[in-house]
């Protein structure tokens, strides 16, 4: 650090706390709710909303399991079943997994772990949340109005195209994609900028906690992957509404173009969902083995490599389309190669546990669930990477089993671990240990019963996305077993909800650091105040709290009468300048409403996007028009309110 540390400094306290609380206060009341721009509030909203979508998607899953439990079952007809499985998949991927694992955890945790007072671009962050909600509502209101998307979460053309999906079902799906992806992109910009510019002094790249590395890498993956799905869903929408011919083979269009673009997004998407899970695991393992993680650099390298390789394997979703053998071999090799970085992470976690002192507390139990479940999913992925085996198991229940092992194993188990770990930080109260263990075992057993069975169904020839099957196929028994397992999983989730509401009301108070963990979010009270840190920290090691010097310096000189944060540089986080963050505002909400009107209008009329752009422009100008404090005095070198004497 090029700034000299002053020696012993007198720091007045008390009044600073009041001033910070006033400066960073968020408005209350009905309209205040829509004006709040603090990252803890928005992060919790992302988590709660996406968890509600998870529960709704789970209801659809239960409906499917009910329908498939017996041959020739009549609970759902084909029309409803197709809507149910499409909305289930779309909800879990677009409305739950990414918003929860990337946006929810990221928005809540990243500024805290960076040691700053709010996320960069808090209004863009809030705007992203509202757009996400509208996208989710669009899909679900559609389902209730019989306009549920029904061409699969991937919506392949020509089935989802203008000729074979009449009405507005696919249009709703395509616009839901636009909403959720704009939201993810907005949050990616906020998170990446926060990590690169607002880390506490001393938190050099080499000392960044792994979770920050992963959030940064995921933000980059979002920035390069999400445009693909926006391009392809826009092409689909234009084919359906303004009669473009992208996917019409008789006039030069191409159905495989859709698949290439979709999977160019779709495979990185898997890692966008899975890497936050490994981020949570890499955070929890050191805490509960009471040692620094083994293999920091290999793990970080693996994460970066995974994100890179993730862009090179999309064709393995298309092996059955009949590609040239050369490209089959190439994509087999790439798909097998991506096993290596994940294996490296597994070995490093194993080594950390081996040489640490394990405390098998509740969050760690879920991490062990992750090890078991994800291992099975990853290993069956080796089978899918092999082209000939993929020809057999592609689009069967084997693949359904595989990706539920990967996604539930790679995202849901770490998510529950992370929730048990961080909910004490969010609510200030501990979760009940017994109920948590009951939840784990119900979920773990139910999950394996449901999805391990599906491997056999797939090998026995049951294709995916069938609404029923004839008794002659002999798939009834295994399906009944799988449906029974689903019931146990449902019971587990209910236990979690009971635990959450009960502990939020009457749980033991957590205190700032109940797990004696090492990262900076545990250096603030639970729940954190809106200014996060009373004294901005400096960092001396990868686990900031563990590695802190007995008399670790703090940062002074950041104004507390305006919402100001310290901006540091990307590599070695040296303080560079100070930046005033925007405060609460209603404009992000109004802009999101204007954007929603334009997008939804465009489904029904191609002029909607043109007319709808007018209120968008007005609200954007309202949003960006400067107001509030005059920042001019801050150009002066020294200001009143500096604590240096």
């Amino acid at each position, binding site marked *: 650090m090029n700034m000299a540390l002053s020696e012993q400094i007198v720091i007045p306290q008390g009044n600073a706390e009041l001033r910070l609380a006033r400066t960073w206060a968020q408005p209350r009341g009905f309209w205040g709710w829509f004006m709040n721009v603090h990252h803890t509030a928005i992060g919790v909203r992302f988590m709660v909303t996406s968890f509600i979508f998870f529960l709704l998607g789970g209801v659809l899953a239960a409906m499917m399991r009910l329908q498939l439990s017996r041959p020739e079952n009549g609970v759902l007809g*084909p*029309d409803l079943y197709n809507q149910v499985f499409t909305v289930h998949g779309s909800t879990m991927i677009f409305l739950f997994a990414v918003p929860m694992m990337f946006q929810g955890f990221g928005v809540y945790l990243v500024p805290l772990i960076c040691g700053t007072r709010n996320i960069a671009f808090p209004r863009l962050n809030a705007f992203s949340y509202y757009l996400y909600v509208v996208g989710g509502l669009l899909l679900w209101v559609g389902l209730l109005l019989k306009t549920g998307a029904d*061409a699969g979460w991937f919506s*392949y053309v*020509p*089935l989802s195209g203008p000729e*074979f999906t009449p009405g507005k079902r696919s249009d709703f799906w395509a616009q839901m994609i636009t909403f959720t992806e704009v939201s993810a992109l907005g949050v990616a910009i906020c998170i990446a900028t926060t990590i690169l510019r607002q880390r506490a002094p001393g938190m050099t790249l080499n000392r960044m906690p792994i979770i920050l590395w992963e959030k940064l890498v995921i933000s980059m993956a979002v920035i390069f992957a999400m445009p693909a799905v926006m391009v392809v869903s826009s092409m689909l929408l234009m084919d359906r509404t303004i009669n473009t011919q992208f996917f019409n083979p008789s006039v030069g269009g*191409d*159905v*495989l173009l859709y698949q290439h673009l979709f999977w160019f997004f779709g495979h990185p998407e898997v890692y966008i969902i899975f890497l936050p899970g490994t981020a949570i695991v890499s955070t929890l393992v050191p805490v509960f083995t*009471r*040692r*620094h993680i*083994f*293999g920091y650099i*290999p793990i970080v390298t693996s994460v970066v490599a995974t994100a890179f390789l993730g862009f090179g394997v999309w064709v393995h979703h298309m092996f*059955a*389309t*009949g590609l040239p*053998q050369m490209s089959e*071999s190439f994509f087999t*090799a790439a798909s*097998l190669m991506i*096993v*290596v970085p994940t*294996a490296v992470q597994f*070995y*490093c976690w*194993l*080594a950390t*546990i*081996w*040489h640490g*002192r*394990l*405390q098998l507390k509740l969050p760690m139990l879920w991490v062990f669930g992750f*090890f078991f479940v994800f*291992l099975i999913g990853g*290993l*069956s992925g*080796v*089978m899918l990477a*092999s*082209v*000939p*085996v993929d*020809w*057999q198991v592609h*689009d069967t229940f084997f693949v359904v089993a595989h990706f539920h092992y990967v996604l539930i194993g790679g995202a849901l188990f770490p998510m529950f671990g992370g929730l048990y770990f961080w909910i004490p930080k969010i609510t200030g109260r501990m979760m009940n240990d017994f109920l948590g263990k009951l939840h784990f075992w119900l979920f773990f057993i139910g999950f394996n019963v449901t999805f391990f069975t599906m491997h056999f169904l797939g*090998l*026995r*020839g049951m294709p995916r996305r*069938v*609404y*029923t099957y004839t008794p002659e196929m*002999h798939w009834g*028994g295994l399906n009944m077993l799988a449906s029974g397992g689903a019931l146990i999983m449902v019971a587990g989730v209910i236990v979690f909800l009971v635990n959450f509401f009960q502990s939020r009301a009457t749980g033991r108070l957590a205190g700032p650091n109940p797990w*004696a963990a*090492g990262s900076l979010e545990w250096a603030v009270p639970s729940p954190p105040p809106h200014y996060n840190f009373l004294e901005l920290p400096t960092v001396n090691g990868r686990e900031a709290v*563990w590695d802190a010097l007995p008399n670790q310096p703090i940062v002074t000189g950041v104004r507390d009468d305006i919402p100001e944060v310290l901006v540091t540089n990307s590599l070695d986080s040296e303080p560079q300048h100070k930046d005033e963050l925007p405060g609460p505002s209603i404009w992000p909400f109004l802009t999101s409403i204007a954007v929603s009107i334009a997008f939804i209008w465009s489904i029904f009329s191609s002029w909607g996007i043109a007319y709808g752009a007018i209120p968008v422009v007005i609200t954007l100008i309202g949003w960006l028009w400067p107001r509030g404090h005059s920042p001019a005095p801050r150009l002066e070198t020294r200001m009143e309110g500096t604590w240096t004497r």
Partner: protein
Amino acid sequence: MNPIPPISGLGSAVALFLAQFTGEHNSLHPAGPQASDIEWLYWVIFWIIFVAFILMITGFARAAARNRTQAAEMLPIMSDPEGDRRATWAVSSAVAITVLTLFAVLFMSVITGKKVEGRTSTNPITIQITGHQWWWEVQYPSPQADQTITTANEIHIPVGRPVVILTSSADVIHSFWAPSVNGKRDLLPGYSSAFWIQIDKPGTYPGRCAEFCGLQHAHMGFSIIAEDDNTFKQWEQQQLKPAADPADPEAAHGKQVFATHACIMCHTIRGTDAGSRMGPDLTHLGSRQMIAAETLPNTRGALAGWIIDPQRIKPGNHMAPNLLEPDDLQALITYLQTLQ
């Protein structure tokens, strides 16, 4: 008490359980060289990943059993050079073994892929499969138009001879998959591709559509019937003939019913006025084992139910319900069954 019921109950439960793993629609019951190659590869990879799974789980279990502690405020280990050194060694060798194993998998996979795709022949039987929502059109193309066989959902092939399947689609993407014969191949509109199958054992091998194709994706089956050369030749000769004129009066009435009702709008019966290509060719319907894309057996009752109310059996399919007088219906079915 009588001990037998629980035992027999258990027995039947076991039998029921085992029944879940039988059946010909099974990737692990290969009937031809392509499926056998893939099955071999499947088991090789299975045992590799099984060993990997056991090793990893043992590792995690042992790691979890060492150095357990419940002390609440246990101070973290700040530095552990000896442990790190040993871990570095262990992790590096594990990564090396992983990479080598993956290379082995890649090698075997590529070799097997070449083997599966390489079983060709210069004098094959060629079959054109066209996917429709929700049935399969099967053609045996021939340079002479009148030597071309057109049928639906049932593919007859001779045992032991390589067959090339040409694929195309009439509407959306379907996928042709008979697991005991070969892997699946997508039928893409705007594309045509070719792949090879061969069956070495006479029998009937079921297949299904494997790519989601709309409302009745679930009921889009077909079957491949492998028979010896003579039987296949006989079948071929029979299929080339136009439909025989019905001899008995009921069947003749049925033919008239066919011609004066909705049937004629969609179906072809060669040798009659019916020539629409919208639905399956019915010229030799009576010789098929199943109807409605392998959904129902080809019996009088099933045919009657299908003709009168197909939307109950396959909701959303493209066959319209037919309100026929009972006499007309009986005559029509009699006629259809004469179409051998």
